[in-house]
């Protein structure tokens, strides 16, 4: 497991920039991130503009653009700031989670749903951002975030070592199936206003079905 996990560190000080201005820039950054988190969570991805984020944060539109290249990048920072501590915790806990590989995956995803359901519109924004027309290279919408994939990979490798995951299966394909099942389960929020408990129940069954596919053949 990685030792360097934890909240996103502030950007390293730039050369030649006076410390006072550096800390002012960091303060702006934090205000923008907080304001953006609230707006994305209320109005969704398309419904939020950089202008509104600036107004809500009480900073000039220009100073948002000196810190972030795009709306997508702001959302990526919002998600990273939220998810880094979660993944750090999951990294610490996963080696101690017992049961079959399927059960360990169920526990891991249940933690995700419980966490995201509290700000579910923010997570929907995160998924929607993947299709943004103006997506900048700095943005990391859902699907391009390697962290979740790494946790699943480690869980499957442990399953191979313990004998309930086939050795001749392409792990990346199983990872992609699980990640897309996870993301698509959130559509239930859009269509049925399903809560965390409901999504966890659906995901548990989907994991069981995928687990049938990676179980060793008898």
């Amino acid at each position: 497991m990685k030792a360097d996990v934890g909240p996103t560190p502030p950007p390293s000080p730039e050369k030649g920039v006076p410390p006072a201005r550096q800390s002012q820039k960091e303060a702006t950054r934090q205000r923008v991130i907080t304001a953006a988190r609230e707006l994305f969570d209320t109005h969704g991805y398309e419904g939020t503009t950089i202008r509104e984020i600036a107004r809500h944060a009480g900073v000039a539109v220009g100073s948002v653009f000196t810190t972030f290249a795009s709306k997508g990048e702001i959302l990526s920072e919002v998600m990273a700031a939220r998810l880094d501590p979660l993944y750090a915790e999951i990294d610490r806990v996963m080696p101690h989670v017992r049961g079959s590989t399927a059960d360990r995956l169920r526990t891991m995803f249940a933690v995700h749903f419980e966490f995201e359901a509290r700000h579910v519109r923010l997570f929907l924004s995160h998924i929607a951002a993947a299709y943004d027309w103006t997506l900048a290279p700095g943005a990391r919408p859902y699907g391009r975030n390697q962290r979740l994939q790494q946790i699943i990979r480690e869980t499957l490798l442990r399953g191979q070592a313990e004998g309930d995951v086939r050795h001749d299966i392409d792990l990346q394909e199983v990872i992609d199936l699980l990640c897309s099942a996870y993301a698509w389960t959130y559509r239930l929020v859009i269509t049925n206003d399903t809560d965390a408990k409901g999504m966890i129940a659906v995901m548990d069954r989907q994991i069981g079905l995928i687990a049938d596919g990676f179980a060793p053949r008898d």
Partner: protein
Amino acid sequence: MNNKRRMKHISPNSVAADAPARAPTRRALAKQQTRLKVLAAARRLFSEQGYEGATIRDIASAAGMSTGAVFANFTDKSDLFREIMVDDIEALIASMREAAERGRNVEDGLLKMFMAGYTFYKTRLQLARAAFSVSWDKDGGPTLRGLPNNLIMQDLFTETLANAVTRGELSQEAEVKLRSQMLFDTYLSNFPQAIFEGWSLDALQARSRDQIRILLAGARRG
């Protein structure tokens, strides 16, 4: 409708739209032509600029008419987008159904259905991208996802599995509903690879085949 203002923007082809009411069929024909022109322009702009990026004003000017003329035919932008989606999905359902019938077995049938979709959208990936963007929106999503045609497409996956159970190819406890929903989600989840990473149809086919095998494995064991 302000006739004077409309005349200024109207293209020569659709002048008949303003002809006196005693030629109802020609008038209806012209109205239909106007609709088609708006739809074609909208399709192009949604593909180029995304759903949010394309405005009714831009669509009207691309179609060579006033925004009023657009609103005379469509209630709003979402109505226009929905109409385009309905047309496309209807055509896609026909080719998916035909694909399912050509399948040698359940796995092959599903794979052909996936490929019918990827082939259909190969030339309109940017429109698919706009549709995905709308589908994840809490406001626009429910309408798009709830389109009767979308539900028919999902049912096609369910029917394919149910037929395989009837034929004895899959076990009675195949959890047809959950499994077909997952297959449909998986079909959709491969679109980003095509849209953003330029995957070829061959690459999509290889990936889909593996995914279908994994998702069917439990139902075969019986």
